[in-house]
Each structure stands twice: as C-alpha cells, then as structure tokens.
C-alpha cells in the first residue's frame, strides 16, 4: 500500500490501472481531461498494459468500449457533461448488451449557458439508461468505488455498466491524500474479467438484434432484475472491500449521526461531507439532526430510505440538480419511495449548488434551520426551495 497525495482525477487513473483495465477509449473534455491524461501516461510509460484508443468523439469512445467489452476485456472510460450527453444513445447499447463497462463521470453542469463547474445535471440526465450510478464524497472514495464497481458490474447476477460520479473541481482537481493498495491486494479482491457473453470468431454471431414485441419486455425486465440484484450485492461488496482494505461506505447510503435524529439532511456527493460538519455543529447546539448521503443513486436505495424514515420527523433533500418543471430527482424519488407509508416524515426539498455555486457547511446549516422551523410549525413554506437564489 502507498499513501499518495493527488487529485481525484489522477486517482481515478490509478484505479483503472489497479483494476488491470485492458482497453481505454476516451475523448478529453473539461474537467475530465486529467483522468485520461493520467491513463495515457501510464500506458505510454509501460506501467499499464492496456490499449489506449484515441477517438473522434464521446459517442465513439463509448462504442469502442462496447466493442472491447464484447470482445472479452475489461474496459474503462471517463467523460463530463456534454461529452456524456453525446454518449447518450450508446449508453443504452452498453446496458442493453449487458456489458460491465465502468466510466468515471466528472460532473459538470450542462449548457446553455456554458459552465465548466459542477452539478449533477449531466449524470442525472442519464438516469434511465440502465447504468448504475455511484456518487463519491472524496478522492479516496473515487479509487475505492471504481475497484468495487468492477467487482459488482462483472457479477453474473448483475452484468451492467456503472458510472462513478465525482464533482468537477471540488474533487477532480483538488489534491488530497489517498491510499493506493498494492497490485497483489487489488488482484486478491478483483478477479480477472469474465463477461456474460463474448464475441468469438470461431462461433460468429451478432448481438442485440431486432426483437419482436413478444420478447422485448423480458429483456427490459432482466435489466430491472439485475438492478435489484445489485441492491443486494452493493452492501456485501462494500463490506468485503472494507474487510480487506479498511474502508467502507455504508453500501447504498452513508448515514451520519442519524440515530435519535428528528431531522435528516439527505444529500449526494461532496455535499455529504459538508453535511457532516453541519451535523456536528447543530448537535453541539442541542439540535437532533443527522445526515445521510445517497451513495448509489441507481439502483435507488428505497429500502434504506424507508428504514431511515421510520424514526425521523423530517427529511430534507438537497439536490445539485433540477428537473425543469418539477424539482430535483433526489427530492422526487425520496417522496415517491415513502408515499405508501402510513406514518411518513415531512419532506422538504432544496435545489442548491447548480453550476458550481458553493454549498458549504454554513449553507447546509441554513437549510437545516429552515427545515427545523417547518418541523416545529408542522408545515412547509414551500415544497421546493431554491437555496441562495438572487431575488
């Protein structure tokens, strides 16, 4: 094991190397660029035994990964924002073909207007593509989640691709310490790649051809089943990783001081780290507040949300995302998960931090105080509130 100090993007490159990825096809885009630069450096200097395919677009990057994964090797790519949007069609082909591709998505807001700063509007726009989605809170988690993701994606009960999402600049270009395990340690955790099916020149066939209405639904249902299986496996893989490497992340959802809490602030990504500072401060002041971070957004942690909701009076969601004409997905889906419960907590949803606006522990404290006021009064001022919006 080696302790290094580096950016989350470079650390994602270290993870691809440690996972013994054999094909990387990528197109550079801010703020993802240094992920694939690091990998190019590893390949060029002979530290990583992989084929690095330079392509003319993100669509081609994903299609090259699909081809390589179908030919029977472990693949990796990375992108951001408009690059991810350009991949959209191919994302469906990867999941529908049940290929366990792992991709780092360095979150960046969508234009117009142009922004290079982070929010989750890029990856959450790909919610329904059949990819699993993980959201990381720090540099170390980026490394650990990429390794865990290969183990999970390649499980025969799953065979689905996964996006490992990390917020641009907040993580991507921020230097922090991380433990990089030895190759032998990673090999012991992550066995060699085995695909669910493979292209074979001696037994030629084509895949994912036209399917009549009589069979299409079943193929869709099998993806849904795989997502449900992943829900069972994610905590197990996380625990097994924890046993071997000493770090685990609560499986689907990372809870912080939720025991005995009246109010839980529900977040994703780095806001989850900030929320812990808020909780510490408010707990010191006598407020019964906890925080929970949705680490896996697809499959959605419905059961964990139900468990969490049992003992609290209120949940406040903070979305670094807006689904125009509605609210943020985290808010909507948390409400949907709880709708059929008799005694469900009050739920407030906040939209915050779009296009890279800072969401600090102080910001989360203000949202928590607003929530506590609503909780005391028993009614919400607004069901969805845009936090820190200029009047």
């Amino acid at each position: 094991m080696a302790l290094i100090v580096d950016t989350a993007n470079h650390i994602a490159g270290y993870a691809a190397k440690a996972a013994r990825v054999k094909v990387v096809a990528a197109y550079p885009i801010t703020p993802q660029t240094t992920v694939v630069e690091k990998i190019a450096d590893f390949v060029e200097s002979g530290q990583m035994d992989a084929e690095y395919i330079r392509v003319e677009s993100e669509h081609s990057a994903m299609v090259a990964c699909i081809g390589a994964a179908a030919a029977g090797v472990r693949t990796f790519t990375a992108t951001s924002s408009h690059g991810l949007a350009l991949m959209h069609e191919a994302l469906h082909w990867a999941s529908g073909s049940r290929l366990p591709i792992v991709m780092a998505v360095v979150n960046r807001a969508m234009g117009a207007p142009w922004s290079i700063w982070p929010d989750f509007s890029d990856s959450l726009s790909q919610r329904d593509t059949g990819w699993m989605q993980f959201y990381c809170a720090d540099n170390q988690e980026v490394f650990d989640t990429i390794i865990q993701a290969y183990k999970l994606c390649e499980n025969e009960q799953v065979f689905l691709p996964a996006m490992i999402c990390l917020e641009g600049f907040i993580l991507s270009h921020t230097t922090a310490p991380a433990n990089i395990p030895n190759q032998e340690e990673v090999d012991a955790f992550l066995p060699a790649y085995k695909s669910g099916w493979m292209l074979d020149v001696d037994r030629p066939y084509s895949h994912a051809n036209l399917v009549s209405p009589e069979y299409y639904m079943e193929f869709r249902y099998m993806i849904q089943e795989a997502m449900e299986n992943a829900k069972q496996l994610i905590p197990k893989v996380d625990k097994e990783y924890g046993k071997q490497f000493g770090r685990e992340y609560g499986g689907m959802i990372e809870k912080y001081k939720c025991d005995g809490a009246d109010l839980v602030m529900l977040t994703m990504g780095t806001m989850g780290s900030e929320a812990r500072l808020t909780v510490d401060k408010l707990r010191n002041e006598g407020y019964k507040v906890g925080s929970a971070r949705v680490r896996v957004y697809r499959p959605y942690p419905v059961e964990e949300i139900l468990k969490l909701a049992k003992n609290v009076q209120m949940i406040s969601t903070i979305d670094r995302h807006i689904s125009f004409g509605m609210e943020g997905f985290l808010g909507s889906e948390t409400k949907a998960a709880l709708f059929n419960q008799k005694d469900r907590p009050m739920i407030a949803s906040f939209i915050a931090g779009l296009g890279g606006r800072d969401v600090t522990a102080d910001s989360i404290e203000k949202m928590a105080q607003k929530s506590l006021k609503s909780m005391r009064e028993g009614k919400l001022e607004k069901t969805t509130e845009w936090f820190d919006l200029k009047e």
Partner: protein
Amino acid sequence: MTLTKSRKEMPLTPLSSPTEGSMGKTGSWRTFRPEVNYAKCTRCALCWIYCPDAAISRQEDDSPKIDYDYCKGCGICANECPTKAIAMKREEE
C-alpha cells in the same frame, strides 16, 4: 433466437448466429435485376468480390452465378464490372 416461453431460458441479450435466409428471401425486395452477358465476361470475379450480400458465387470456369433468392438488386456488381457485362433490368420487363 429460439422461441421460448420462459424468460429463464433467455440469454442476457439476444444473440443471433448467421443462418441462410434468416430474414426470408430478400431477393423479393429487388427492383432492378442484374443479368450477366457471359460473352462479355472476362472472369475477373470483381462482381463476386464486391457483392455486399454474398449473392454471387463463382462457377467452375470462374464466371459469376447470381442467386436471385437473395440478390437485392443494388447494382454494385454492374457498376464495378470493367467490361460492362452486367446489365440492370427492371424486374417487370
């Protein structure tokens, strides 16, 4: 794909092995029909190389034989033929 009643018997993703005529007799899609003038043909086999549907085979003397069950009438063979030995004729003519 084999017909199946249970999804337990289904593969992860549909896989299709190449079989002759899996889409039916695609020659019925044809509007123009290639006809070989064997007197002009030099047996160069360019038509056989270029046919995208493998609907042309080589006979013993290397002259082409067109399989009208699967020839869609795209006309590539006629275009490539250096001696203009293949004519495209309207089906109904």
